[in-house]
């Protein structure tokens, strides 16, 4: 099942959280395989388990049951140190709120993962500048976050995710804090990175963002309820929009409310 081009392989992943007295089943027997070079969107409402799934893919959390493999290596039984090194090498994180350091220049932000990869400072700076150029921000290397637009900040964050040449870019609502135009900048960049062969996994509420992916995975109540080629993929084949099926596509209105609620939560 897991051949050489399989990046991540999950079999029967279950995740149970203990919330006081009650147990919450966040993931209920999820099996998923991510091949190299895929462009995947994971969609679902709040509480659908997509954040838990993201944390497990990102090696920030470990499943209660089931087997998680990255590049054929089982993640269970790894020490915190080994997991940190795996995150550093294999995963590039992009967050909704960018999570940039407040007072550091862009190149400083980008070289951060290299610090933990024990790359020498001089070499790290060179690679940070190179990666900034890759996301179109060569001119802004010395700018601090407050001197950059939201879209530019997110691109700095993407450069930071890419600088250590990870296998997988894991983005959590990457356009959630951006307006349509700057969000488009980021999506265009994702498209370019996908064309260059990078594996992308995007967690999103936003239908438009999901439509750009080649594969859309929909979650509900801790399980995958649909896994289909995205609009972009089907459009390329000239087929029908996979998301037009009512059962699979979340209704626009509840999604919008969810989004607002989550933004309020994030901001508050």
């Amino acid at each position, binding site marked *: 099942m897991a051949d050489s081009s399989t990046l991540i392989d999950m079999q029967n992943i279950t995740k149970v959280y203990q919330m006081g007295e009650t147990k919450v089943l966040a993931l209920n027997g999820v099996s998923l395989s991510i091949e190299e070079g895929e462009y995947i969107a994971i969609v679902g409402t709040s509480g659908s388990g997509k954040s838990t799934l993201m*944390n497990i893919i*990102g090696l*920030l*959390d470990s499943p209660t049951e089931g087997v998680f493999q990255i590049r054929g290596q089982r993640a269970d039984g790894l020490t*915190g*140190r080994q997991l*940190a*090194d795996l*995150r*550093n*090498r294999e995963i590039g*994180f992009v*967050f909704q709120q960018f*999570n940039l*350091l*407040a*007072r*550091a220049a862009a190149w400083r932000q980008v070289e*951060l*993962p290299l*610090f*933990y*990869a*024990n790359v020498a*400072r001089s070499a790290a700076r060179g690679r940070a500048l190179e990666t900034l150029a890759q996301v179109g921000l060569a001119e802004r290397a010395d700018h601090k976050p407050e001197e950059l637009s939201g879209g530019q900040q997110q691109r700095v964050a993407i450069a*930071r995710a890419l600088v*250590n040449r990870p296998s997988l870019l894991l983005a959590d609502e990457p356009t959630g804090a951006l307006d349509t135009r700057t969000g488009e900048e980021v999506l265009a960049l994702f498209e370019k990175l996908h064309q260059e062969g990078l594996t992308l996994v995007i967690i999103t509420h936003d239908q438009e963002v999901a439509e750009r992916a080649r594969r859309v995975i929909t979650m509900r109540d801790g399980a995958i309820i649909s896994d289909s080629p995205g609009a972009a993929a089907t459009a390329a084949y000239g087929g029908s929009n996979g998301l037009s099926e009512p059962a699979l596509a979340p209704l626009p209105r509840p999604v919008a409310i969810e989004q607002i609620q989550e933004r309020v939560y*994030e*901001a*508050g």
Partner: protein
Amino acid sequence: MKLVRYFPVAVDSIRANKMRASLTMLGIIIGVAAVLIILGVGRGASEDILGEVASQGTTRLTISPSTENEGEGAGSAVETLTMGDVRTLSDPAFHPDVRQIVPQYGGNIQLVAGNENTRARVTGTTAAYADVHRLEIAEGRFLTEDEITQMSNVIVIGTTVATDLFERTQVVGESVRIDGEPFTVVGVLEESGNAGFGSNDESGFIPIGVAHGRVFNVPRYRGEYVVTSISADAVSEERVDAAERQIEQTLRLRHGLGADDDSDFSISTQASLLDTIGSVTSTLTLLLSSIAAISLLVGGIGIMNIMLVSVTERTKEIGLRKALGAHTSDVLLQFLVESLVLTLLGGLIGIGISYGAAVLVSRVPGFPIDVLIGIDALVMALGVSAGCGLVFGLYPAMRATRLDPIVALRYE
């Protein structure tokens, strides 16, 4: 070696909060400066006093009567030390290590010259006093052997006495009256320059026989005049202990003390005086610097407080760093080094301030003591500041390592 990598990170973080960092450091700065200055003052004062004592000779022994410890006269001197003891102690056959024996009988008394008068400590003694006590004469000379044996009415006075009575110090040949009896001034002592320990500026010296027979109403013990103390000079610094034993043996015999009886006199040496002064000043210094060290403790708690705030404020940053691959040890070291840099910087500034104070004090003319800050104190100050950083930074740093990255990343 890897530790060095965290310093730029720490410096960046401290730079980002300059005001807060400097206020936090202030606690360490004040603590370190206070401890160093107090240690410096203590050492300066101690060297000053020790130097003073040493300049008066380290071969001297002082024999004093014990004080009564019971009965009506408790606290006053036992009057059993007499001129008879002095004569016996002066025999070199039984006291080969004693070079000089000098009796003293002194008291405070009124000196009069013309319309002026002053109270001075007048001591009756012998010619050898000047040698044993290293007196320096500014004008004239000290008492001579002849004047002692002939009980001449002559006096040697200190500079303060001279200026009080004559408003000048070139007073050799002038006359001073004690109880109406005229005394000729034969010498004036060199000004000792400090009003404190061992100064003779307010003293006068007259022949011992004159003090006993005419000036003071001196009691007798077994037919001999008593003395207030006897000074002895050992032949060398190494023989001081031997001299002390010889003197003790003679006096116990003469005073008819049994093997179990306590001595009715005590012998102190300059060496024992040096020891006593040394231990008194170091105890005082220790006491004062431990009070100052409390401010260092308060400063350290300030560091811990601000590091805890810093960890809470940067929860999201810590989550991010962990997501990007930071090990637990990376997070721990980042915050430890940050508090270390804070306290070391504070320690260095404190050292700078105390050094500045020491230099300033040394430039003030007539300031009684130097502030001496040794290399050992500097090393200790740096060590203590660094220790403070590590001890008080450890708990906040450990709090940082315990953060769950998933929760930390969501923290607002």
